């Protein structure tokens, strides 16, 4: 999976550039997220604005990243399209994650 990386202060902003976040890309994403966390990045914004499709494996990989970060860090999401958001709602994952409209809103919330 292609991931665009940015750093805003102590926050790591990750933006998947692949349109589809599915069972095939989820394996690579989980490994990459584990690497980011083990190298000290525990406050992460995941910008899903380029993602047109996510399946349960993609959702599971994001949950896995949240667990890896644990309670001493934060993983928030932003930029989720309405169709993709419908799957978060269906699986109640919209209650698990803090979800923001865009990177600016997410950064402000994590910086306050």
């Amino acid at each position: 999976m292609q991931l665009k990386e940015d750093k805003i202060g102590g926050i790591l902003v990750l933006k998947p550039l692949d349109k589809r976040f599915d069972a095939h890309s989820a394996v690579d994403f989980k490994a990459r997220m584990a690497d980011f966390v083990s190298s000290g990045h525990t406050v992460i914004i995941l910008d899903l604005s380029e993602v047109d499709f996510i399946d349960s494996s993609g959702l599971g990989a994001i949950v896995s990243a949240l667990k890896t970060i644990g309670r001493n860090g934060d993983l928030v999401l932003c930029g989720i399209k309405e169709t993709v958001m419908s799957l978060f709602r269906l699986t109640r994952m919209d209650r698990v994650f803090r979800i923001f409209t865009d990177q600016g809103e997410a950064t402000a919330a994590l910086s306050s």
Partner: protein
Amino acid sequence: MSRIKTTSSIRLTIDSNLNNVFLVGLTVEAICSYAPFKAVTAYQVGTSVVEAVNNAIKHAYGNQPGHQVEVDILLNPEGVRFEISDTGRPMRLQGSHKLEYDPEDLENLPEGGMGLFIINQVMDHVEYKNFGDRNLLTMGKYYDCDPQVDLCEGD
């Protein structure tokens, strides 16, 4: 008049490799976008088919490539039906379509097992049968837009 007056069908066959599933997903999404579904419904129906094919590859074939997964898509005047078949290990589906968890309980959040839940939530009809050496998952979804009009309320 409805764009879909008679039954049309297409068969997709892929090798049992997760790398191929997006081809099925893209095709189903395109067909469902043409059919009188709301945009979110079309997306969720496409996701359900992807979940079913993922399950066949992961569970029936144990993630081993070199086997076939067939997806028959039947577009009817009332709705769309999918028949996903494989020749792998039969799956146990009883009771596995529930998704119960506490969103606050970080350690016990589900990382898997959501595919069947999604299928059962989205589709109007789901049936799984084993015919000896062949497993067949049939799923149906009725249109949620008026097929007589071009614009769908809620889109």
